[in-house]
């Protein structure tokens, strides 16, 4: 697609390094710290850096063959976005209410470390973890339990599939009414949101084993439970992990949004909504950073776990 430029990888690496060094030097300029009004030279350098950033990203994206090139480009791009976010917000003196600079967000995260940790334990360790485990566990258990009852399956499956189109998080006010403001009401919302995806996925997974394998076990006169344990559950693992991954995100969303409907004075959703109302945006961004990092870490953890648990499966083996 793009004309191959006759520039070697070493030149690209040098260009990336040089632009990063210049960028960090410019970052120490008083204008970048909000100390003095930006001069024409500062603007010139910033524009030049912008051009350099675009060029290096293009160069790095054109690299082929190495193992990390995909991650590398995305990481470089993210770094430059953060950098220009910081520089432009300070240089243009964008009001903090609109968009706080990244350094300000980090600073307020460090300052209110204890508060954010409290929010994290309240929302993630209590509501999300309990709700996610209970909801996914119940979904799995019900799916296995009704595996031998095609009548129930035919009745439940259409209803369970329909729930994906329904905004289940709207039960939050009812959950608050029943279970109080504390975390059990949030966990209840999470249970409801995570139950159905797990049920549907597990039921699909239990049907996923090949006919050949099932007939082989049949010819061995394997019992139902033996077939379930040795063949059908193992071949359902990718489906189950798929639901676990989807549920991790759903659980975070459910717990945070449920806190918008009423919560004790702690929790990520509470922090986001109250600090946004007080226009303390750097704290809001801090809470969002915590939620985002939690979400991606949970996902990465589940991916690793899946590789360990289903290392033999064709969908994992290829990677």
């Amino acid at each position, binding site marked *: *697609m793009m004309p191959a430029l006759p520039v070697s990888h070493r030149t690209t690496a040098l260009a990336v390094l040089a632009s990063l060094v210049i960028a960090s030097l410019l970052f120490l300029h008083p204008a970048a710290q909000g100390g003095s009004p930006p001069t024409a030279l500062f603007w010139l350098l910033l524009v030049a850096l912008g051009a350099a950033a675009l060029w290096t990203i293009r160069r790095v994206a054109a690299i082929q063959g190495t193992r990390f090139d995909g991650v590398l480009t995305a990481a470089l791009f993210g770094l430059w976005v953060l950098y220009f976010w910081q520089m432009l917000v300070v240089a243009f003196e964008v009001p903090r209410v609109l968009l706080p600079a990244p350094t300000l967000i980090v600073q307020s995260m460090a300052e209110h470390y204890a508060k954010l940790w409290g929010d994290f334990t309240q929302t993630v360790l209590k509501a999300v973890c309990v709700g996610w485990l209970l909801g996914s566990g119940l979904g799995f258990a019900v799916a296995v339990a009704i595996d031998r009852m095609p009548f129930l399956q035919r*009745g439940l499956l259409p209803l369970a599939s329909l729930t994906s189109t329904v905004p289940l998080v709207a039960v939050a006010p009812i959950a608050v009414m029943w279970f109080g403001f504390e975390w059990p009401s949030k966990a209840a919302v999470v249970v409801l949101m995570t139950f159905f995806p797990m049920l549907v996925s597990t039921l699909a997974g239990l049907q996923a084993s090949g006919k050949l394998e099932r007939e082989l076990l049949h010819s061995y006169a394997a019992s139902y439970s033996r077939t379930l344990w040795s063949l059908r559950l193992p071949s359902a693992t990718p489906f189950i992990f798929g639901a676990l991954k989807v549920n991790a995100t759903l659980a975070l969303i459910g717990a945070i949004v449920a806190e918008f409907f009423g919560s004790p004075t702690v929790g990520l959703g509470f922090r986001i*909504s109250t600090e946004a109302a007080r226009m303390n945006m750097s704290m809001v961004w801090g809470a*969002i950073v915590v939620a985002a990092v939690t979400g991606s870490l949970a996902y990465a953890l589940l991916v690793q776990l899946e590789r360990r648990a289903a290392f033999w499966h064709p969908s994992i083996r290829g990677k």
Partner: protein
Amino acid sequence: MATSNKAPTPPLARRMWDTGLPVAVILIFFLLIWYAAAWGMNSSAAVERVLAPTGNPWTWQDLLTTTWNMERPVLPAPHQIALDFWSGIVDWPLDSPRNLLFHVAVTGETTLVGFVLGTLLGLVLAVLIVHSRTLDRALLPWIVASQTVPVLAIAPIVLVILGSLGMEGLAPKAVIAMYLSFFPVTVAMVQGLRSPQVIETEMLHTYAATRWQALWLLRLPAALPFLFPALRVGIAASLVGAMVAELPTGATAGLGARLLTGSYYGNTLAIWSALVMSALLGLMLTTLVAATEHVALRHRRQP
């Protein structure tokens, strides 16, 4: 999506019997449990607030009818919700905030505007990503990673930012609905636009087709089966976004606002009606997308 069973489709009556009956049985069973739960959860309040103050002795039949017809029950009985729902639709003029359809119109408008904008943004981004290696490498990993992050949490920030820029009413809510629905569309469309086989792209190449022709004649049609499942996910996300966007603003219109006011005033029936209504709205919107899919892909179905 299309089930690939090779057996001829059984007649309608047979299919109704095969899935309709089990679903009906489950629903009836569910209703019975609901009534029992309403009796169990409301009985203490019923005794305390209704039966005991009268001073008269009461029988279990009295208790049963009271628990199923309380004014502010812990769990309203299904018929109470149905009645409240119906009165919320027909008892008030359409432009009154007491009418449920008024709130449906507000939330539905936000959802659809956000969904259409989000879909367009997703399509444009996907086309750009497919044609630019740089964007593919730099942007796509972030879009994929953002699927694991509760992006809905940014909603209050979007409201504050757009609010201080002077945007009010529909626009900020639609923006939230938009950014929730564009992620799935982008990811699915990138996959779909890349789905044509090498042999097909090479054939267009031998015809000296331009990029635009390749996009229009080959890539976009090939991507349609990928697009529609993403649209179903997108419209559901858009509805959730529209409802959540109504919460922090103190909006007075919309299903989300109705849920919030219901929970402020402890008006259980209003909450349940709004909940049923939002479920119905979600089903209607998804059906709309499914019907569009059915029409758009009617020539694709293999015999």
